[in-house]
């Protein structure tokens, strides 16, 4: 059995805490043991990258080194931004031209044997769609949810080894496995404004507005995400978006782990459903009632 280290990253400690608890709850329900990286630090995110790629690699590298020292084979992180930093660090570590500088700056032993994966890859590849389907206790009945992967999860292509960079399907398949109806969503990988939440929320307003609008057009009741930044932009900032775009969006934006958690029979509170800004109780529709008339609700 693989030893899986868990790297939650700063966002999941703060504004995205429900992503953290739902990830842990789902893994627990599926019998996956997560070993939290002791005393992990921030991976540096885009600011580190824009300052110096070596800084980014070394910051992420410290977490990898700790996980490796704990005897783990893979590091799983729910945050695509962190994933990019972790993969970047591994790339630097294996690049003959950079590895010496990397090691010097990292300043601790690290072999670079470990792999970095996202929670999505863990569910899609390691657990598998069929195994997940078999564990569903409360399948959804008629909920229509679009999967929104965001820009980083499947890019750049050299890092996206588990799904197609242009038309990823892993989240589609996972959602379908728990009974959700998944329409074709053309904006799966469009960027939502990423880190400009703070500095330029006019940009976020426009880009996020497009995405929410397209979700409504294809008939979605909610957007499923796998990235804390996407979630914040789409959910927390939905009111800002409404102001910028002169709209009245009221679209739940839920973490994929929350959607799956409900279907696995986990209590909504244990998935942090109450922490979302736009109410997402529609998810519970079929979870409460399994009789056919449930279909008439809503």
């Amino acid at each position: 059995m693989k030893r899986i280290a868990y790297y939650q990253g700063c966002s999941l400690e703060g504004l995205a805490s429900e992503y953290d608890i739902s990830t842990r709850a789902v893994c627990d329900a599926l019998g996956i043991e997560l070993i939290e990286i002791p005393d992990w630090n921030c991976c540096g995110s885009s600011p580190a990258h824009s300052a110096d790629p070596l800084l980014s690699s070394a910051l992420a590298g410290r977490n990898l080194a700790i996980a490796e020292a704990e005897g783990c084979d893979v590091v799983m992180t729910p945050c695509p931004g962190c994933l990019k930093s972790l993969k970047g660090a591994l790339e630097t570590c294996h690049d003959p031209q950079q590895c010496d500088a990397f090691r010097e700056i990292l300043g601790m032993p690290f072999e670079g044997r470990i792999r970095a994966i996202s929670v999505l890859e863990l569910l899609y590849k390691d657990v598998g769609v069929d195994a997940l389907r078999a564990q569903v206790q409360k399948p959804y009945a008629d909920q229509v949810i679009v999967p929104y992967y965001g820009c980083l999860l499947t890019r750049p292509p050299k890092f996206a080894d588990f799904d197609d960079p242009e038309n990823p399907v892993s989240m589609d398949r996972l959602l379908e496995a728990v009974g959700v109806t998944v329409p074709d969503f053309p904006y799966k990988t469009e960027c939502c404004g990423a880190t400009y939440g703070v500095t330029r929320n006019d940009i976020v307003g426009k880009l996020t507005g497009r995405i929410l609008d397209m979700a409504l057009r294809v008939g979605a009741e909610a957007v499923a995400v796998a990235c804390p930044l996407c979630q914040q932009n789409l959910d927390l900032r939905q009111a800002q978006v409404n102001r910028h775009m002169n709209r009245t969006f009221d679209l739940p934006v839920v973490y994929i782990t929350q959607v799956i958690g409900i279907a696995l029979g986990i209590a909504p509170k244990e998935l942090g459903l109450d922490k979302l800004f736009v109410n997402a109780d529609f998810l519970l529709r079929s979870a409460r009632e399994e009789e056919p008339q449930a279909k008439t609700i809503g």
Partner: protein
Amino acid sequence: MEHIHTLSIQNTYDADFIKRVEEASGQQVSKCYQCGNCSASCNYTYVYDYPVNQIMRLIQLGQREIVLKSRSIWLCASCQACTTRCPCNIEVSHVMESLRIMSREEKMVSLKDIQLFYDEFLRSVKTFGRVFETGLLPVFNMKAKRPFGDMDLAPLVLKKGKLHLLPSRIKGRKEVAGIFERLEAFHKKHEA
């Protein structure tokens, strides 16, 4: 968009710039044949002063100052759409990233706010080992002279119990600070 009148190419041509960008990014900029796919795919083209394909063209023409002073390089969100679709296998996003670093080094940063946010972010990491979201925002707002930026969100966040009043200080923050220090020493050594 600033209008370039006549660009007397040789007067502002910096051949060394092309070389430095290529070295820093590991990308061969001369491979770009100006298809425009990067700009077609970039969600930020509308706020850029030069669409990213023009940034690539300006590098090819050695126009260091226009490039390093452009707003585009700071508005790039590293979303990788350009890298993913470039038919010439250029990691365009990587080039943009290298330009940000160069513009910082050469003191040509156009959008100081974004740089400031990045700096505050890293300061937080260096101090606590993790990012302290609650602390980062007010400091940034103050320094950026936008005291009420995002204040509309505070009550929402507070209500959901998501606002931490204290940073989580990790035990290994000395180790993390050490990374910053060794990096600085490393660069000093290599400049010498």
